[in-house]
């Protein structure tokens, strides 16, 4: 090989670095434009919620004071929190043991169950929601917070189980085998060895189920019929039934709604796996 060819090979990357700095600003500009596209509607929401109604445009918390004192917002907030937290607790309690069996089990039955979970996940909610509404009306669970919690647990179960199973896949089986040799039962091995080592997986599952229950509109709009049982996404729709919408109040409720997910993401981001992200969208 001659020195001439060697020199061109060395020169090539240097040239690309020089071109890179102009390219870098172009790439930065594209990202900033996309970030603006993402941010503008949300910034508008926050801005409106903080703007005074007297037309001066000054910043104020009066919209929040109004919605929290005069309307059912507090009751809807409490309903939303109750339903979301109950969904989290029950989902984790059901999905963690099922995930353990899926993770450790082999064979046709376990594989079949995993496939069944996928099929169920892909089914349109609208198909099962109509018969369930009729059934729940008969047994007093329609227009009821317990009823809607059951539905949220059911609709988050596939993804929650996969998330737990995926996490437990990473825990070596030798840990619980050692416990079995020491005389622990399979159940104790699951509880004391596997589950105790799965806390990040549990947290990730909890975040997913919380968001699913907190954000849901479709199921709640069908099942919750009276103002006393409304969750926030349903309650806020009543603001739109007047002739002119009071955007300050609407957006104040909107900000109350977007705060928990945003705070959770800002603080617990690293626990939230992409696998869970994938499932949660597919599941809505």
């Amino acid at each position, binding site marked *: 090989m001659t020195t001439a060819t060697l020199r061109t090979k060395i020169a090539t990357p240097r040239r690309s670095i020089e071109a890179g700095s102009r390219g*870098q600003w172009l790439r930065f500009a594209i990202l900033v434009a996309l970030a603006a596209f993402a*941010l503008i509607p*949300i910034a*508008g929401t926050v801005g409106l919620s903080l703007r005074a109604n007297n037309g001066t445009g000054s910043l104020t918390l009066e919209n929040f004071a109004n919605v929290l004192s005069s309307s059912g917002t507090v009751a809807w907030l409490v309903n939303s929190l109750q339903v979301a937290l109950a969904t989290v607790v029950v989902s984790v309690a059901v999905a963690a043991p099922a995930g353990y069996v899926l993770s450790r089990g082999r064979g046709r039955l376990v594989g079949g169950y995993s496939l069944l979970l996928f099929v169920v996940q892909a089914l349109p*909610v609208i198909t099962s929601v*109509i018969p369930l509404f009729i059934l729940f009306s008969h047994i007093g669970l329609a227009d009821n917070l317990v009823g809607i919690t059951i539905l949220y647990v059911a609709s988050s179960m596939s993804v929650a189980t996969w998330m737990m199973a995926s996490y437990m896949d990473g825990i070596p089986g030798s840990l619980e085998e050692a416990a079995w040799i020491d005389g622990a039962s399979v159940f104790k091995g699951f509880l004391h060895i596997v589950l105790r080592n799965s806390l990040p997986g549990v947290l990730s599952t909890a975040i997913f189920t919380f968001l699913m229950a907190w*954000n849901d509109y479709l199921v709640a709009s069908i099942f919750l019929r009276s103002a006393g049982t409304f969750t926030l996404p349903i309650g806020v729709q009543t603001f739109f039934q007047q002739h002119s919408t009071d955007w300050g109040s609407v957006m104040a409720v909107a900000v109350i709604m977007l705060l928990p997910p945003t705070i959770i993401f800002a603080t617990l981001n690293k626990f939230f796996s*992409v696998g869970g992200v994938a499932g949660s969208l*597919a599941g809505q």
Partner: protein
Amino acid sequence: MSTSVRRTELPLTVRTPTHEPLNRRRRSTPGRAPATKLFLILPSVVILILTNAYPIAYAAFQALHNGSLISPGEFVGVDNFAKVLADPAFWRAAGFTAVFAVAGVFGSWIIGIAIALLLRTRIPAKGLLKTILLLPWVVPIVVSAMSWNWLIGTSSSPVPTIFHALGFGDAIFLSDPLGAQITVCLFEIWVNFPFMMLMMSAALSSVDESIYEAAKIDGAGAWQQFRYMTLPIIAKPTYISWVLMAIFCVNDFPTVYLLTHGGPVGATNTLVVLAYKTVFQNFQTGPGVAIAFLMTLALAIVAVLLFRQIRKSTSQ
């Protein structure tokens, strides 16, 4: 396939039915304590059956009867399906659902993968940009729909006002059928691109940078590197993200309903919205459930086709 691609470290563990755990050192005895395992999985099985098997069976019953929300009605055979299939509104909704899903899947994928690629390069304020770009996905859909409604809902909303001031005339977004269709698709892309960005970032993190060096020396441009090196490597997560997004878009109710209620004059009715309206506004349970069944069938066919593609892309 190049060994420098660390396939096994792909963090994208969407647990598909064919998923095999990466950790093969585990030798759990399958027959150990079957009663305990049954006990552990039983609550999940019971919930699954109660909230799925019964409703699906009852929905099949409803699809063949002319009942309502309060009475089971009489057996009418496939009349509901015939009625639905003869209704032009159904075909309009089916057509728009296809457009909506294709726009949703590919629109969000193109933006998502572009961002994922850009975020791999040296960029100032990367962390902040990443957080902002995730926002549309984090914010509840009800809130996003309200924001968009405020931004573009009427002719005096901010965006139409700006359009008018810039000399584009009276831009109509939601009161014109085509305008509403475009707006709803754009909204779907806005809601979903952060998901694609996350999926594609995860997929790209498994691609080793060093594979590009040889290509650069050989004079391959950025597009060629992307088309012939990056894209084949991330084919599997890409197909998975398409399947998930297609399922999501077809089943998506609030994005359309909260923005347009399916209007104007039914232009933005997707099949889900049409099924919902047929049951809960027109109180025709049978036809409504029939629409949902037909939609599920179409979705299943698309999902199976895409899953085949996934199998093919992994067996290569």
